[in-house]
Protein backbone atom coordinates (compact mmCIF):
# COMPACT_ATOMS: atom_id res chain seq x y z
CA UNK A 1 0.00 0.00 0.00
CA UNK A 2 1.08 3.54 -0.71
CA UNK A 3 2.25 5.01 2.64
CA UNK A 4 0.45 8.37 2.49
CA UNK A 5 2.13 10.77 4.98
CA UNK A 6 -1.24 12.30 5.93
CA UNK A 7 -2.60 8.93 7.07
CA UNK A 8 0.61 7.97 8.88
CA UNK A 9 0.61 11.26 10.83
CA UNK A 10 -3.11 10.96 11.48
CA UNK A 11 -3.00 7.44 12.92
CA UNK A 12 0.12 8.04 15.02
CA UNK A 13 -0.76 11.45 16.49
CA UNK A 14 -4.49 10.94 16.94
CA UNK A 15 -3.64 7.57 18.53
CA UNK A 16 -1.29 9.20 21.04
CA UNK A 17 -3.66 12.13 21.58
CA UNK A 18 -6.68 9.94 22.30
CA UNK A 19 -4.44 7.74 24.49
CA UNK A 20 -3.55 10.78 26.58
CA UNK A 21 -7.21 11.86 26.76
CA UNK A 22 -8.07 8.33 27.95
CA UNK A 23 -5.67 8.65 30.88
CA UNK A 24 -6.82 12.19 31.67
CA UNK A 25 -10.43 11.01 31.65
CA UNK A 26 -9.60 8.34 34.20
CA UNK A 27 -7.91 10.92 36.41
CA UNK A 28 -4.27 10.05 35.72
CA UNK A 29 -2.65 12.44 36.47
CA UNK A 30 -5.22 14.05 38.76
CA UNK A 31 -4.57 17.63 37.67
CA UNK A 32 -6.69 20.78 37.80
CA UNK A 33 -6.29 24.40 36.72
CA UNK A 34 -3.39 25.45 34.52
CA UNK A 35 -1.55 22.14 34.60
CA UNK A 36 -4.78 20.37 33.50
CA UNK A 37 -5.04 23.01 30.75
CA UNK A 38 -1.52 22.13 29.53
CA UNK A 39 -2.28 18.40 29.44
CA UNK A 40 -5.55 18.92 27.57
CA UNK A 41 -3.91 21.25 25.05
CA UNK A 42 -1.32 18.57 24.25
CA UNK A 43 -4.04 15.89 23.98
CA UNK A 44 -6.22 18.03 21.71
CA UNK A 45 -3.28 19.18 19.54
CA UNK A 46 -2.36 15.55 18.86
CA UNK A 47 -5.91 14.23 18.44
CA UNK A 48 -7.35 17.11 16.42
CA UNK A 49 -4.12 17.70 14.50
CA UNK A 50 -4.19 14.05 13.48
CA UNK A 51 -7.84 14.24 12.45
CA UNK A 52 -7.24 17.36 10.36
CA UNK A 53 -4.24 15.71 8.74
CA UNK A 54 -6.46 12.76 7.76
CA UNK A 55 -8.70 15.05 5.71
CA UNK A 56 -5.71 15.93 3.48
CA UNK A 57 -5.96 12.59 1.74
CA UNK A 58 -9.63 13.13 0.88
CA UNK A 59 -10.53 14.11 -2.67
CA UNK A 60 -13.43 16.25 -1.45
CA UNK A 61 -12.89 17.26 2.20
CA UNK A 62 -15.72 19.81 1.90
CA UNK A 63 -18.17 16.89 1.91
CA UNK A 64 -16.60 15.20 4.94
CA UNK A 65 -19.65 15.86 7.14
CA UNK A 66 -21.52 13.27 5.05
CA UNK A 67 -19.23 10.64 6.56
CA UNK A 68 -21.25 10.70 9.80
CA UNK A 69 -24.27 9.05 8.16
CA UNK A 70 -23.29 5.42 7.51
CA UNK A 71 -22.39 4.21 11.01
CA UNK A 72 -24.54 1.10 10.54
CA UNK A 73 -22.12 -0.45 8.07
CA UNK A 74 -18.94 1.62 7.82
CA UNK A 75 -16.05 1.64 10.32
CA UNK A 76 -14.83 4.92 8.84
CA UNK A 77 -18.19 6.51 9.60
CA UNK A 78 -18.16 5.05 13.14
CA UNK A 79 -14.67 6.46 13.64
CA UNK A 80 -15.85 9.94 12.72
CA UNK A 81 -18.76 9.76 15.17
CA UNK A 82 -16.63 8.35 18.01
CA UNK A 83 -14.01 11.06 17.47
CA UNK A 84 -16.53 13.89 17.63
CA UNK A 85 -18.30 12.42 20.69
CA UNK A 86 -14.97 11.85 22.46
CA UNK A 87 -13.72 15.37 21.72
CA UNK A 88 -16.97 17.01 22.91
CA UNK A 89 -17.17 14.95 26.13
CA UNK A 90 -13.51 15.46 26.95
CA UNK A 91 -13.83 19.21 26.30
CA UNK A 92 -16.65 19.43 28.87
CA UNK A 93 -14.71 17.24 31.30
CA UNK A 94 -11.57 19.30 30.72
CA UNK A 95 -13.48 22.56 31.24
CA UNK A 96 -14.58 21.23 34.62
CA UNK A 97 -10.99 20.51 35.62
CA UNK A 98 -9.47 23.69 34.23
CA UNK A 99 -12.07 26.35 35.05
CA UNK A 100 -14.01 24.94 38.00
CA UNK A 101 -11.43 22.71 39.67
CA UNK A 102 -14.03 19.94 39.59
CA UNK A 103 -13.49 16.38 38.41
CA UNK A 104 -16.72 15.06 36.90
CA UNK A 105 -15.67 11.41 37.14
CA UNK A 106 -18.46 9.72 35.20
CA UNK A 107 -18.09 12.17 32.30
CA UNK A 108 -14.34 11.46 32.27
CA UNK A 109 -14.86 7.69 32.18
CA UNK A 110 -17.35 7.95 29.30
CA UNK A 111 -14.98 10.33 27.49
CA UNK A 112 -12.14 7.84 27.98
CA UNK A 113 -14.32 5.07 26.59
CA UNK A 114 -15.10 7.05 23.43
CA UNK A 115 -11.43 8.05 23.08
CA UNK A 116 -10.44 4.39 23.05
CA UNK A 117 -13.35 3.56 20.75
CA UNK A 118 -12.02 6.16 18.30
CA UNK A 119 -8.68 4.34 18.18
CA UNK A 120 -10.45 0.98 17.92
CA UNK A 121 -12.70 2.10 15.06
CA UNK A 122 -9.65 3.55 13.26
CA UNK A 123 -7.91 0.20 13.55
CA UNK A 124 -10.98 -1.66 12.29
CA UNK A 125 -10.90 0.37 9.06
CA UNK A 126 -7.70 -1.55 8.33
CA UNK A 127 -8.42 -4.82 10.11
CA UNK A 128 -11.71 -5.37 8.25
CA UNK A 129 -10.04 -5.50 4.82
CA UNK A 130 -9.85 -9.08 3.56
CA UNK A 131 -8.07 -7.68 0.51
CA UNK A 132 -5.00 -6.91 2.64
CA UNK A 133 -4.27 -10.16 4.51
CA UNK A 134 -1.48 -8.57 6.57
CA UNK A 135 -4.01 -6.23 8.22
CA UNK A 136 -6.94 -8.64 8.35
CA UNK A 137 -6.16 -9.81 11.89
CA UNK A 138 -7.30 -9.13 15.49
CA UNK A 139 -3.69 -8.13 16.15
CA UNK A 140 -4.22 -4.94 14.13
CA UNK A 141 -6.68 -3.40 16.65
CA UNK A 142 -4.51 -4.82 19.45
CA UNK A 143 -1.49 -3.00 18.00
CA UNK A 144 -3.33 0.32 17.49
CA UNK A 145 -4.84 0.22 20.99
CA UNK A 146 -1.59 -0.73 22.73
CA UNK A 147 0.38 1.95 20.85
CA UNK A 148 -2.24 4.53 21.73
CA UNK A 149 -2.36 3.62 25.42
CA UNK A 150 1.44 3.38 25.68
CA UNK A 151 1.85 6.81 24.07
CA UNK A 152 -0.91 8.20 26.27
CA UNK A 153 0.70 6.85 29.44
CA UNK A 154 4.03 8.30 28.37
CA UNK A 155 2.57 11.78 27.82
CA UNK A 156 0.49 11.53 31.00
CA UNK A 157 3.68 10.90 32.95
CA UNK A 158 2.49 7.49 34.21
CA UNK A 159 5.96 5.93 34.26
CA UNK A 160 5.05 2.41 35.44
CA UNK A 161 2.06 2.16 33.13
CA UNK A 162 4.12 3.52 30.24
CA UNK A 163 6.91 0.97 30.71
CA UNK A 164 4.45 -1.92 30.92
CA UNK A 165 2.32 -0.76 27.97
CA UNK A 166 5.34 -0.03 25.77
CA UNK A 167 6.65 -3.53 26.47
CA UNK A 168 3.24 -5.05 25.66
CA UNK A 169 2.91 -3.03 22.44
CA UNK A 170 6.43 -4.14 21.48
CA UNK A 171 5.45 -7.80 21.84
CA UNK A 172 2.23 -7.28 19.84
CA UNK A 173 4.19 -5.45 17.14
CA UNK A 174 6.73 -8.26 16.75
CA UNK A 175 4.00 -10.92 16.59
CA UNK A 176 2.09 -8.83 14.03
CA UNK A 177 5.22 -8.53 11.88
CA UNK A 178 5.89 -12.26 12.06
CA UNK A 179 2.29 -13.24 11.42
CA UNK A 180 1.98 -10.62 8.67
CA UNK A 181 4.90 -12.04 6.69
CA UNK A 182 2.94 -15.23 6.03
CA UNK A 183 -0.50 -13.63 5.83
CA UNK A 184 -0.81 -13.31 2.05
CA UNK A 185 0.23 -16.92 1.55
CA UNK A 186 -2.10 -18.02 4.34
CA UNK A 187 -5.05 -16.18 2.80
CA UNK A 188 -5.13 -18.66 -0.09
CA UNK A 189 -5.52 -15.88 -2.64
CA UNK A 190 -3.09 -16.37 -5.51
CA UNK A 191 -2.85 -15.44 -9.17
CA UNK A 192 -4.47 -18.83 -9.84
CA UNK A 193 -7.62 -18.03 -7.80
CA UNK A 194 -7.61 -14.42 -9.02
CA UNK A 195 -7.82 -15.50 -12.65
CA UNK A 196 -9.54 -18.87 -12.16
CA UNK A 197 -6.93 -20.29 -14.54
CA UNK A 198 -5.09 -22.39 -11.96
CA UNK A 199 -6.77 -25.66 -12.97
CA UNK A 200 -5.22 -25.42 -16.44
CA UNK A 201 -1.61 -25.08 -15.33
CA UNK A 202 0.72 -22.58 -13.70
CA UNK A 203 -0.30 -18.97 -14.33
CA UNK A 204 2.13 -16.11 -15.02
CA UNK A 205 1.37 -12.47 -15.73
CA UNK A 206 2.39 -12.07 -19.35
CA UNK A 207 1.48 -8.53 -20.31
CA UNK A 208 -0.09 -5.79 -18.19
CA UNK A 209 -3.21 -4.00 -19.49
CA UNK A 210 -1.41 -0.69 -19.92
CA UNK A 211 2.09 0.54 -20.68
CA UNK A 212 2.05 3.40 -18.19
CA UNK A 213 1.16 3.38 -14.53
CA UNK A 214 -2.29 3.84 -13.01
CA UNK A 215 -4.14 4.52 -9.75
CA UNK A 216 -4.15 0.84 -8.80
CA UNK A 217 -0.39 0.43 -9.15
CA UNK A 218 0.37 3.69 -7.32
CA UNK A 219 -2.03 2.95 -4.47
CA UNK A 220 -1.73 -0.81 -4.02
CA UNK A 221 1.52 -2.06 -5.49
CA UNK A 222 4.00 -0.04 -3.42
CA UNK A 223 7.17 -2.11 -3.08
CA UNK A 224 9.87 0.42 -2.18
CA UNK A 225 10.04 -0.45 1.53
CA UNK A 226 10.57 -4.19 1.11
CA UNK A 227 14.32 -4.05 0.58
CA UNK A 228 15.11 -2.41 3.91
CA UNK A 229 12.26 -3.94 5.82
CA UNK A 230 14.37 -5.76 8.44
CA UNK A 231 16.59 -2.73 9.08
CA UNK A 232 13.57 -0.43 9.42
CA UNK A 233 11.86 -2.87 11.77
CA UNK A 234 14.94 -2.96 13.97
CA UNK A 235 15.28 0.84 14.00
CA UNK A 236 11.59 1.25 14.75
CA UNK A 237 11.66 -1.33 17.56
CA UNK A 238 14.71 0.23 19.21
CA UNK A 239 13.19 3.73 19.04
CA UNK A 240 9.71 2.90 20.21
CA UNK A 241 10.37 0.10 22.73
CA UNK A 242 14.00 -0.34 23.84
CA UNK A 243 15.05 3.31 24.25
CA UNK A 244 11.88 4.60 25.98
CA UNK A 245 11.83 1.69 28.46
CA UNK A 246 15.53 2.19 29.29
CA UNK A 247 15.07 5.96 29.68
CA UNK A 248 12.02 5.52 31.89
CA UNK A 249 13.97 3.13 34.10
CA UNK A 250 16.39 5.97 34.91
CA UNK A 251 15.58 8.40 37.76
CA UNK A 252 12.79 10.68 36.50
CA UNK A 253 13.56 14.02 34.91
CA UNK A 254 11.53 16.04 32.44
CA UNK A 255 14.37 16.10 29.93
CA UNK A 256 14.77 12.33 29.94
CA UNK A 257 10.97 11.97 29.62
CA UNK A 258 11.01 14.33 26.64
CA UNK A 259 13.70 12.26 24.91
CA UNK A 260 11.64 9.13 25.61
CA UNK A 261 8.56 10.76 24.04
CA UNK A 262 10.47 11.92 20.95
CA UNK A 263 12.03 8.49 20.54
CA UNK A 264 8.66 6.76 20.98
CA UNK A 265 6.96 9.01 18.42
CA UNK A 266 9.78 8.56 15.89
CA UNK A 267 9.72 4.78 16.32
CA UNK A 268 5.94 4.67 16.01
CA UNK A 269 6.06 6.76 12.82
CA UNK A 270 8.59 4.31 11.34
CA UNK A 271 6.43 1.37 12.39
CA UNK A 272 3.32 2.95 10.89
CA UNK A 273 5.18 3.69 7.65
CA UNK A 274 6.07 -0.01 7.47
CA UNK A 275 2.46 -0.93 8.32
CA UNK A 276 1.39 0.67 5.04
CA UNK A 277 4.47 0.11 2.88
CA UNK A 278 4.66 -3.61 3.63
CA UNK A 279 0.93 -4.28 3.24
CA UNK A 280 0.24 -6.39 0.15
CA UNK A 281 -3.12 -5.76 -1.51
CA UNK A 282 -4.35 -8.81 -3.45
CA UNK A 283 -5.01 -6.69 -6.55
CA UNK A 284 -1.22 -6.69 -7.04
CA UNK A 285 -1.58 -10.36 -8.00
CA UNK A 286 -3.32 -9.39 -11.24
CA UNK A 287 -0.19 -7.43 -12.15
CA UNK A 288 2.17 -10.22 -11.12
CA UNK A 289 3.54 -7.93 -8.41
CA UNK A 290 3.37 -10.32 -5.46
Amino acid sequence: MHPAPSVIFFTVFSGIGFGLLTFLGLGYPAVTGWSAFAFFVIGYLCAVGGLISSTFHLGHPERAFKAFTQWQSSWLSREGICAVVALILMALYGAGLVFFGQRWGLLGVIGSFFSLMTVFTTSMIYAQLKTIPRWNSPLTPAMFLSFSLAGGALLAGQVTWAMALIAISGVIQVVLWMQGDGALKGSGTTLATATGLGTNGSVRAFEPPHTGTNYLLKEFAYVVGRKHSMKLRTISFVLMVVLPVLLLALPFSHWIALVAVVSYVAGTLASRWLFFAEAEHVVGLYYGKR
Partner: protein
Amino acid sequence: MTTLPQSTERKLGLVIDLDTCVGCHACVISCKGWNTENYGAPLADTDAYGSDPSGTFLNRVHSYEVQPSQGEAQLIHFPKSCLHCEDAPCVTVCPTGASYKRTEDGIVLVNESDCIGCGLCAWACPYGAREMDAVEKVMKKCTLCVDRIYNENLPEEDREPACVRTCPAGARHFGDFADPESNVSKLTAERGGMDLMPEQGTKPVNKYLPPRPKDTLSEGAGDIDILAPYLEPVAQEATGFLGWLDKTLEKL
Protein backbone atom coordinates in the same frame (compact mmCIF):
# COMPACT_ATOMS: atom_id res chain seq x y z
CA MET B 1 -27.41 3.47 2.13
CA THR B 2 -24.25 1.44 2.31
CA THR B 3 -25.89 -1.59 3.84
CA LEU B 4 -26.36 -4.23 1.16
CA PRO B 5 -29.82 -5.36 0.02
CA GLN B 6 -30.78 -8.87 1.22
CA SER B 7 -31.52 -9.84 -2.36
CA THR B 8 -32.07 -8.05 -5.64
CA GLU B 9 -35.00 -8.53 -8.03
CA ARG B 10 -32.67 -9.00 -10.95
CA LYS B 11 -28.95 -9.71 -11.08
CA LEU B 12 -27.60 -7.92 -14.12
CA GLY B 13 -24.05 -8.73 -15.06
CA LEU B 14 -21.62 -9.99 -17.65
CA VAL B 15 -20.30 -13.31 -18.83
CA ILE B 16 -16.76 -13.02 -20.15
CA ASP B 17 -15.56 -15.82 -22.37
CA LEU B 18 -11.80 -16.33 -21.88
CA ASP B 19 -11.83 -18.85 -24.73
CA THR B 20 -13.07 -16.31 -27.24
CA CYS B 21 -11.41 -13.06 -26.15
CA VAL B 22 -8.69 -12.10 -28.61
CA GLY B 23 -7.23 -9.32 -26.48
CA CYS B 24 -7.99 -6.49 -28.91
CA HIS B 25 -8.87 -3.98 -26.12
CA ALA B 26 -11.88 -2.70 -28.11
CA CYS B 27 -14.03 -3.06 -24.96
CA VAL B 28 -11.53 -0.90 -23.07
CA ILE B 29 -11.75 1.87 -25.63
CA SER B 30 -15.54 1.78 -26.08
CA CYS B 31 -15.98 1.79 -22.31
CA LYS B 32 -13.69 4.78 -21.92
CA GLY B 33 -15.46 6.58 -24.76
CA TRP B 34 -19.01 6.03 -23.53
CA ASN B 35 -18.26 6.73 -19.90
CA THR B 36 -16.24 9.83 -20.62
CA GLU B 37 -18.95 11.36 -22.79
CA ASN B 38 -22.03 10.37 -20.80
CA TYR B 39 -23.11 9.79 -17.17
CA GLY B 40 -20.95 11.17 -14.37
CA ALA B 41 -17.54 12.79 -14.20
CA PRO B 42 -15.41 12.18 -17.33
CA LEU B 43 -12.59 9.63 -17.10
CA ALA B 44 -9.46 11.75 -16.92
CA ASP B 45 -6.14 11.20 -18.61
CA THR B 46 -3.14 12.94 -17.11
CA ASP B 47 0.07 13.64 -19.04
CA ALA B 48 -1.48 11.69 -21.90
CA TYR B 49 1.22 12.69 -24.41
CA GLY B 50 4.06 13.09 -21.92
CA SER B 51 6.57 10.78 -20.30
CA ASP B 52 4.30 9.55 -17.50
CA PRO B 53 0.86 8.93 -18.99
CA SER B 54 -1.85 7.70 -16.66
CA GLY B 55 -5.61 7.54 -16.85
CA THR B 56 -8.84 6.27 -15.37
CA PHE B 57 -10.34 3.17 -16.97
CA LEU B 58 -13.30 1.09 -15.84
CA ASN B 59 -12.29 -1.96 -17.82
CA ARG B 60 -8.80 -3.29 -18.48
CA VAL B 61 -7.48 -6.33 -20.33
CA HIS B 62 -4.65 -8.31 -18.74
CA SER B 63 -2.82 -11.14 -20.51
CA TYR B 64 -1.67 -14.30 -18.74
CA GLU B 65 0.46 -17.23 -19.75
CA VAL B 66 -0.79 -20.62 -18.56
CA GLN B 67 1.77 -23.42 -18.69
CA PRO B 68 0.16 -26.86 -18.30
CA SER B 69 2.30 -29.67 -16.90
CA GLN B 70 2.15 -31.31 -20.37
CA GLY B 71 2.05 -29.51 -23.68
CA GLU B 72 2.25 -25.98 -24.97
CA ALA B 73 1.77 -22.79 -23.00
CA GLN B 74 -1.48 -20.90 -23.61
CA LEU B 75 -1.92 -17.14 -23.75
CA ILE B 76 -5.16 -15.98 -22.13
CA HIS B 77 -6.50 -12.47 -22.54
CA PHE B 78 -8.35 -11.46 -19.45
CA PRO B 79 -10.73 -8.47 -19.42
CA LYS B 80 -11.51 -7.23 -15.92
CA SER B 81 -14.13 -4.74 -14.76
CA CYS B 82 -16.50 -4.47 -11.77
CA LEU B 83 -18.11 -7.84 -11.00
CA HIS B 84 -21.15 -6.23 -9.29
CA CYS B 85 -20.71 -8.58 -6.31
CA GLU B 86 -23.71 -9.73 -4.29
CA ASP B 87 -21.68 -9.25 -1.12
CA ALA B 88 -19.84 -6.15 -2.28
CA PRO B 89 -17.21 -5.10 0.32
CA CYS B 90 -16.75 -1.76 -1.46
CA VAL B 91 -20.31 -0.73 -0.58
CA THR B 92 -20.33 -1.47 3.15
CA VAL B 93 -17.07 0.39 3.86
CA CYS B 94 -18.31 3.66 2.32
CA PRO B 95 -18.72 6.27 5.08
CA THR B 96 -21.01 8.64 3.19
CA GLY B 97 -23.54 6.39 1.46
CA ALA B 98 -22.14 7.35 -1.95
CA SER B 99 -21.60 3.68 -2.85
CA TYR B 100 -24.71 1.54 -3.13
CA LYS B 101 -26.06 -1.62 -4.67
CA ARG B 102 -29.41 -1.23 -6.43
CA THR B 103 -32.25 -3.41 -5.17
CA GLU B 104 -33.96 -3.57 -8.56
CA ASP B 105 -31.10 -4.91 -10.66
CA GLY B 106 -28.06 -5.37 -8.40
CA ILE B 107 -25.87 -2.80 -10.15
CA VAL B 108 -23.22 -1.30 -7.86
CA LEU B 109 -23.00 2.46 -8.37
CA VAL B 110 -21.34 5.55 -6.91
CA ASN B 111 -23.30 8.73 -6.29
CA GLU B 112 -20.49 11.10 -7.23
CA SER B 113 -21.92 14.14 -5.48
CA ASP B 114 -21.72 12.26 -2.14
CA CYS B 115 -18.24 10.78 -2.70
CA ILE B 116 -15.53 12.34 -0.50
CA GLY B 117 -12.74 10.57 -2.37
CA CYS B 118 -11.39 8.70 0.66
CA GLY B 119 -10.50 5.70 -1.49
CA LEU B 120 -11.54 3.11 1.09
CA CYS B 121 -13.89 1.33 -1.36
CA ALA B 122 -11.00 0.80 -3.75
CA TRP B 123 -8.99 -0.66 -0.83
CA ALA B 124 -11.85 -3.04 -0.06
CA CYS B 125 -12.23 -4.29 -3.66
CA PRO B 126 -10.02 -7.32 -4.38
CA TYR B 127 -10.39 -6.93 -8.14
CA GLY B 128 -9.08 -3.41 -8.70
CA ALA B 129 -12.44 -2.48 -10.19
CA ARG B 130 -12.54 1.01 -8.70
CA GLU B 131 -10.22 3.82 -9.66
CA MET B 132 -10.00 7.29 -8.16
CA ASP B 133 -10.18 9.89 -10.89
CA ALA B 134 -7.05 12.03 -10.70
CA VAL B 135 -8.83 15.20 -11.85
CA GLU B 136 -12.36 14.94 -10.43
CA LYS B 137 -11.14 13.29 -7.17
CA VAL B 138 -14.14 10.97 -7.00
CA MET B 139 -14.31 7.19 -7.27
CA LYS B 140 -15.10 5.83 -10.72
CA LYS B 141 -16.33 2.37 -11.51
CA CYS B 142 -18.24 0.32 -14.10
CA THR B 143 -21.92 1.30 -14.11
CA LEU B 144 -22.86 -1.63 -16.37
CA CYS B 145 -23.72 1.28 -18.70
CA VAL B 146 -26.82 2.01 -16.66
CA ASP B 147 -27.37 4.98 -18.98
CA ARG B 148 -27.53 2.67 -22.03
CA ILE B 149 -29.35 -0.45 -20.90
CA TYR B 150 -32.58 1.40 -19.96
CA ASN B 151 -32.17 4.21 -22.50
CA GLU B 152 -35.19 4.36 -24.77
CA ASN B 153 -33.56 7.02 -26.93
CA LEU B 154 -31.16 4.38 -28.20
CA PRO B 155 -32.07 1.73 -30.81
CA GLU B 156 -32.90 -1.52 -29.04
CA GLU B 157 -29.73 -3.32 -30.14
CA ASP B 158 -27.66 -0.63 -28.43
CA ARG B 159 -29.32 -1.11 -25.03
CA GLU B 160 -26.48 -3.16 -23.62
CA PRO B 161 -23.13 -2.16 -22.09
CA ALA B 162 -20.73 -0.49 -24.52
CA CYS B 163 -18.10 -3.22 -23.99
CA VAL B 164 -20.58 -5.96 -24.94
CA ARG B 165 -21.92 -4.02 -27.92
CA THR B 166 -18.46 -3.42 -29.32
CA CYS B 167 -16.74 -6.79 -28.76
CA PRO B 168 -15.87 -8.07 -32.26
CA ALA B 169 -15.28 -11.62 -31.03
CA GLY B 170 -18.53 -11.99 -29.10
CA ALA B 171 -16.59 -12.72 -25.93
CA ARG B 172 -18.81 -10.59 -23.69
CA HIS B 173 -22.45 -11.31 -22.87
CA PHE B 174 -24.90 -9.21 -20.86
CA GLY B 175 -27.98 -10.48 -19.06
CA ASP B 176 -29.90 -11.31 -15.90
CA PHE B 177 -28.37 -14.03 -13.74
CA ALA B 178 -31.50 -14.22 -11.58
CA ASP B 179 -33.36 -15.70 -14.57
CA PRO B 180 -32.22 -19.31 -15.10
CA GLU B 181 -33.41 -19.15 -18.73
CA SER B 182 -31.35 -16.07 -19.64
CA ASN B 183 -28.47 -16.29 -22.11
CA VAL B 184 -25.92 -15.59 -19.38
CA SER B 185 -27.34 -18.21 -16.98
CA LYS B 186 -27.34 -20.85 -19.72
CA LEU B 187 -23.79 -20.01 -20.82
CA THR B 188 -22.58 -20.17 -17.23
CA ALA B 189 -24.22 -23.58 -16.73
CA GLU B 190 -23.00 -25.03 -20.04
CA ARG B 191 -19.43 -23.85 -19.88
CA GLY B 192 -18.72 -23.99 -16.15
CA GLY B 193 -18.70 -20.24 -15.53
CA MET B 194 -16.45 -19.41 -12.58
CA ASP B 195 -16.01 -16.79 -9.85
CA LEU B 196 -12.80 -14.81 -9.44
CA MET B 197 -11.23 -15.10 -5.97
CA PRO B 198 -14.12 -17.12 -4.48
CA GLU B 199 -12.22 -17.28 -1.19
CA GLN B 200 -12.71 -13.53 -0.72
CA GLY B 201 -16.42 -14.21 -0.17
CA THR B 202 -17.64 -11.39 -2.43
CA LYS B 203 -20.03 -13.58 -4.45
CA PRO B 204 -19.38 -11.89 -7.80
CA VAL B 205 -22.30 -11.69 -10.23
CA ASN B 206 -20.08 -11.59 -13.34
CA LYS B 207 -18.86 -15.00 -14.44
CA TYR B 208 -15.80 -16.04 -16.45
CA LEU B 209 -15.90 -18.95 -18.91
CA PRO B 210 -12.65 -20.94 -18.76
CA PRO B 211 -10.63 -21.43 -21.96
CA ARG B 212 -11.25 -24.73 -23.74
CA PRO B 213 -8.28 -27.13 -24.14
CA LYS B 214 -6.27 -26.39 -27.28
CA ASP B 215 -6.05 -28.74 -30.27
CA THR B 216 -3.06 -31.05 -30.06
CA LEU B 217 -1.32 -30.83 -33.43
CA SER B 218 1.91 -32.45 -32.30
CA GLU B 219 0.34 -35.84 -31.47
CA GLY B 220 1.71 -38.82 -33.42
CA ALA B 221 5.31 -37.62 -33.23
CA GLY B 222 6.15 -36.26 -36.67
CA ASP B 223 3.65 -37.55 -39.26
CA ILE B 224 0.83 -35.11 -39.49
CA ASP B 225 -0.77 -36.48 -42.62
CA ILE B 226 -0.97 -39.87 -44.37
CA LEU B 227 0.46 -38.20 -47.46
CA ALA B 228 3.46 -36.91 -45.56
CA PRO B 229 5.87 -39.61 -46.82
CA TYR B 230 5.12 -38.51 -50.41
CA LEU B 231 5.85 -34.93 -49.53
CA GLU B 232 9.42 -35.52 -48.43
CA PRO B 233 11.94 -33.04 -49.83
CA VAL B 234 13.03 -34.17 -53.30
CA ALA B 235 16.57 -32.84 -53.17
CA GLN B 236 18.39 -33.83 -49.97
CA GLU B 237 21.63 -32.24 -51.15
CA ALA B 238 21.84 -28.97 -52.97
CA THR B 239 22.99 -29.27 -56.60
CA GLY B 240 23.88 -26.87 -59.40
CA PHE B 241 24.87 -23.31 -58.56
CA LEU B 242 23.64 -23.52 -54.96
CA GLY B 243 25.56 -26.79 -54.53
CA TRP B 244 28.74 -25.16 -55.83
CA LEU B 245 28.17 -22.12 -53.57
CA ASP B 246 27.60 -24.38 -50.56
CA LYS B 247 30.81 -26.35 -51.17
CA THR B 248 32.85 -23.23 -51.86
CA LEU B 249 31.68 -21.51 -48.72
CA GLU B 250 32.40 -24.66 -46.69
CA LYS B 251 36.03 -24.60 -47.92
CA LEU B 252 36.65 -21.02 -46.84
